[in-house]
Structure formats: structure tokens, C-alpha cells
């Protein structure tokens, strides 16, 4: 039974058909790439999966349950977390508070114990502080825990976004262009990080990326999207040789 099964998914914005009849299957523990030229609809897939957009047609099953009609926070609670193409951190909050917001949904203490500072407030906050610090240590951000998020260098902001997504305790992690704007060295480090967190947290990962060295380097299977249609899928080697993919990326003449 696949972890995530997308069947026949379509999305229209008015007359524009952004996605048509998508079928994607992701098994537990896989690392899948979703690539395609600009405007192919990759981020739209993420937005529909996480409940930001409403799908027009189709069926999405995640961990044997239907995903349709759920709000983004409900999708997160089911075990799916994401990062954004354009970084969306909580800029004026400290690094550690960014992570703590993600722990919020799994916190046990109520707003009443927060108001009156009951013992459960202190134990709850202590636990969050401990977990958040542990996570920041993994991501090499522990010494910057009290720094304001917007003051971090770009690469660290990207890392913090992944850390924050992991704090929601996901089964499936959706990464939207994690290497965007990174130099080759940073991309290489990111590649290792992705491999490592996948082992460590037993994650399934779906990532959108334009950096082919990263995609071909870490992904086990790749889906190629062009004009809202899946034009190819397979292992990185299959994809490299697929004439349809080459055409979509480089133009007809090359083929």
C-alpha cells in the first residue's frame, strides 16, 4: 500500500488547466523527485496536497485516508509537512521560536494553563525547549537559537525551514526547491543532509528541484511534469535518456 496515492488529479484556475489527470504513487521510505520546466505546475501539486488549493477533480489518499477538503493545518496533523519555494520563515521570531511554533499542534497544555501559568505550562514549555534545541543541534543552528530568523544567512534560513517542517513530526516531507539560490558546495551539503534526515527520521521525501545534480544525485525515482501533465517517470537514468524530457527542457531540435 503506497504512503501517498494521487489518482487522476486535475486543477483548473478558471479556464486554465494547471494540472490534468496526474497519477503519482509514493511508497513508504522513498525519495522522489518532481521536476519540470518553469510553470509546469510542480508547486501547484504541493499546494493541492497540503490543502492550500482546492482540487478540481481526482483523489488523494495519504496513509489510507482521503485528503480532500482538509485545511492545511489538518493535513499537517495527518503527518505531511512542507517547505516553501520562497522562504516563509516567521521573520521577527527567534530561530528557536520558529521551531516551537511547529511543535505547537502536538503540545499538551491548554490556553487556560497558559493564562494562569499552571504546572502543565512549565512542563510543556520545558519539553518544547528541549525538543527544539535537540532539533537545532542536528541542523547546526543551536548556537543561533536566540537569533532573529531574518538575520540568518540565506543557506541557514533554508536549513531552518527544513528543521521547522521536521518539528511537525511528519511521515512525508515535501521540499519545494530546497537548493534554490545555493552555491554548488551548499547544494552538496544539502544533498547529504537530505539523505541523512531521511535515515534519521525514517522519512519519505518528495522534492521539487531545478538543480539536476541534486535531483539525479539523491532521488530514487523521478516524475517529470510539463504543462500540467506527467510526461515521464522512472529512475534518474531512465529520465536522462527519455526523449520527451529532453524535448521539454531543451526544445525539439536537440532530439
Amino acid at each position, binding site marked *: 500500500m503506497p504512503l501517498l496515492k494521487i489518482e487522476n488529479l486535475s486543477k483548473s484556475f478558471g479556464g486554465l488547466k494547471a494540472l490534468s489527470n496526474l497519477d503519482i504513487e509514493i511508497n513508504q521510505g522513498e525519495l522522489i523527485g518532481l521536476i519540470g520546466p518553469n510553470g509546469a505546475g510542480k508547486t501547484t501539486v504541493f499546494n493541492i496536497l497540503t490543502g492550500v488549493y482546492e482540487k478540481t477533480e481526482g483523489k488523494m489518499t495519504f496513509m489510507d485516508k482521503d485528503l480532500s477538503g482538509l485545511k492545511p*493545518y489538518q493535513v499537517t496533523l495527518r503527518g505531511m509537512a512542507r517547505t516553501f519555494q520562497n522562504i516563509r520563515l516567521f521573520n521577527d521570531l527567534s530561530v528557536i521560536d520558529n521551531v516551537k511554533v511547529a511543535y505547537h499542534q502536538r503540545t499538551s497544555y491548554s490556553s487556560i494553563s497558559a493564562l494562569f501559568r499552571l504546572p502543565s505550562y512549565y512542563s510543556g514549555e520545558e519539553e518544547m525547549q528541549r525538543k527544539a534545541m535537540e532539533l537545532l543541534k542536528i541542523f547546526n543552528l543551536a548556537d543561533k537559537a536566540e537569533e532573529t530568523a531574518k538575520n540568518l544567512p540565506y543557506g541557514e534560513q533554508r536549513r531552518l525551514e527544513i528543521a521547522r517542517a521536521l518539528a511537525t513530526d511528519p511521515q512525508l516531507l515535501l521540499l519545494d526547491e530546497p537548493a534554490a539560490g545555493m552555491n554548488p558546495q551548499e547544494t552538496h551539503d544539502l544533498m547529504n543532509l537530505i539523505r541523512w534526515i531521511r535515515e534519521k527520521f525514517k522519512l519519505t521525501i518528495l522534492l521539487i528541484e531545478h538543480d539536476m545534480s541534486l535531483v539525479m544525485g539523491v532521488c530514487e525515482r523521478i516524475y517529470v511534469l510539463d504543462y500540467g501533465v506527467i510526461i515521464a517517470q522512472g529512475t534518474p537514468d531512465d529520465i536522462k535518456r527519455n526523449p520527451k524530457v529532453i524535448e521539454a527542457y531543451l526544445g525539439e531540435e536537440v532530439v
Partner: protein
Amino acid sequence: MRNWFNRKNSITLLGIVLLYAVVQGLIVLDIMPPFYMLTLILICIYIILSTSLNLINGIAGQFSVGHAGFMAVGAYVSAMITVLLKGPLILGLLAGATGAALAGLIVGLPTLRLKGDYLAIATLGFGEIVRIVFLNMDFVGGAAGLTLPKQITWSWAFPLMVLSVILIKNFVGSTHGRACISIRENEIAAESMGVNTTKYKVMAFTMGAFFAGLAGGIYANYMYIIQPGTFSFLKSFDILVMVVLGGLGSISGAIVGAIVYTFISALLTGIPEWRLVITAVFLIVMMMFRPTGIMGTKEFSLSFLGKKGDKNAASKN
């Protein structure tokens, strides 16, 4: 409970008690001029109003300008209890605050789908509706208003103000407060991180309305008379100015803003024809040279008094 009385909180508590005792002493000795007394009580009322509006506008980032409306609900409901039903003051204040919170809930549920300017206009409209409703209710006096006995003293206003600020600060310093701040920072990211944004927006709004209602109740039972005209949108803007003046998003800022603004208004009562002009010039200069407000987003901190590493438990209570 051991967490409540750490060094920092104890010192804060001591300061609060001392401030209360000094003013109370002056009252008992009968050397407190009545005008100063009025100003002090007004400062207490405005601190409750500005910290609660700050919860909505500064913390949750929802631009509301209907605070006078909630204040009016609190004032009239508490007046109905204390005057028309001859109930005790504490019951009146509680009922006023609860009534305002209910109004906040009812208004918040539909309007918090709106963003930015649209929400501002909707809440502005709400404030005016409340005023007109009370204007047309004959059993609370209509335009002439309702007269009340003066029951609020320093010993009521000050502790209630301190309690309100502590509760709001506790809320903001908790995971629930962080959820509200995350909505202000980036609503889409907040929702993707598992924050139920609708719930927290409504929660912040309702809580803000609750304390505005409490302030309204205190105001009504201090001022001898309440009239619908008192709660016009100008009052909402006064409160908003205090919050922005102090620093949007900072609780200490809201307190400082309320004190400074009330003080300036009191100082200028001698020259009423210039009062608004001078206030306006002050605000313009302020916004030109310090647009983030007096405190910015910073808070007063006594953390240097606490032990190192005690940072988490170090919030005022």
C-alpha cells in the same frame, strides 16, 4: 507554584505593590488632587484597552479599529447589572467583559476572513453599529446616557489593570501566543506548520474584546455617566494611537503608549483649543523619527536579575 516566585517575578511584584501603596497612601492622607486621581484611573483604563488592542493588532496582526465598540458593550452591560438590576460591582464588571467577549466572538467569526484594510473597515462599522444601538435603546437612556454611582476606586482599577496585563502577557508568552504571532508573521506558513489560524485569530479577538469590555465596565462605574457619544470611532482611534505610539506588538509598548498619551491629553486640558493640534504634531514627529513606536517590538526586561539559563521561566507573573 515554585516557578511563580522566582527572583524576577518577586521584584516585579514588589514594584507593583509599592506603586499601589504609594498612591493609596496619598489618597488616604487626602493629598491626592482629584484631577491627578482621574488621570491615574484613566491611565489604568487605557492600559487595559491598549494592551488588549495590542493583542489583536500587534500580536495576532489583525488590524481592528472597533475597540470602542467592545468598550461600549462592556460599559453598558455592566451598567445594566449595577444600576438597573442593582447587582454587585464585581458581577457587573464580569458580565460586561463577558458580554464584550461574546460580541467579539460573534463579530470575529465572519469578519476575520477579511484581511488588512477590509477588516479595519468591518470593525470600524461594528463600533459604529454598537454606538447607534445604544443610542436607540431607551431603557439605557438613549443619547442622554445613563447615570451610575461611582464605585470604582484606585483599589479596584489598579489591581484589575495589573491582572489584565499579567493575563495577556502570560497568553502571549505561551505556545498559544506564539501561534498568534506566527499568524502575524506569515499566515500561510503558520497554517502549514499546523496552526489553526481561524481558531487563534478568533481567540485573540475574543480575548481582546473581553479586556476591552472590562475596561468599559471600569470606565462606566467611575465616570458617573455613560453616553453613546463617548464610544465613537474617535475613541477607537485614541486607543490605536496609544498602541502604535508605544510600539505595535510590544506589551510594554502598549503600556508606555497609554501612559504617555493619557498624560499628554491631561497636560493639555488647560489649552483645549490647541490640544488636538499639539497631539497631532507630536504624533507626526514621532512617526517621522521613530516609526516603530517608543518601544519598537521590544519588551521591558528584568532578566538580568534572574539566574542565567533561567530564561524560560522568566516571564512576569
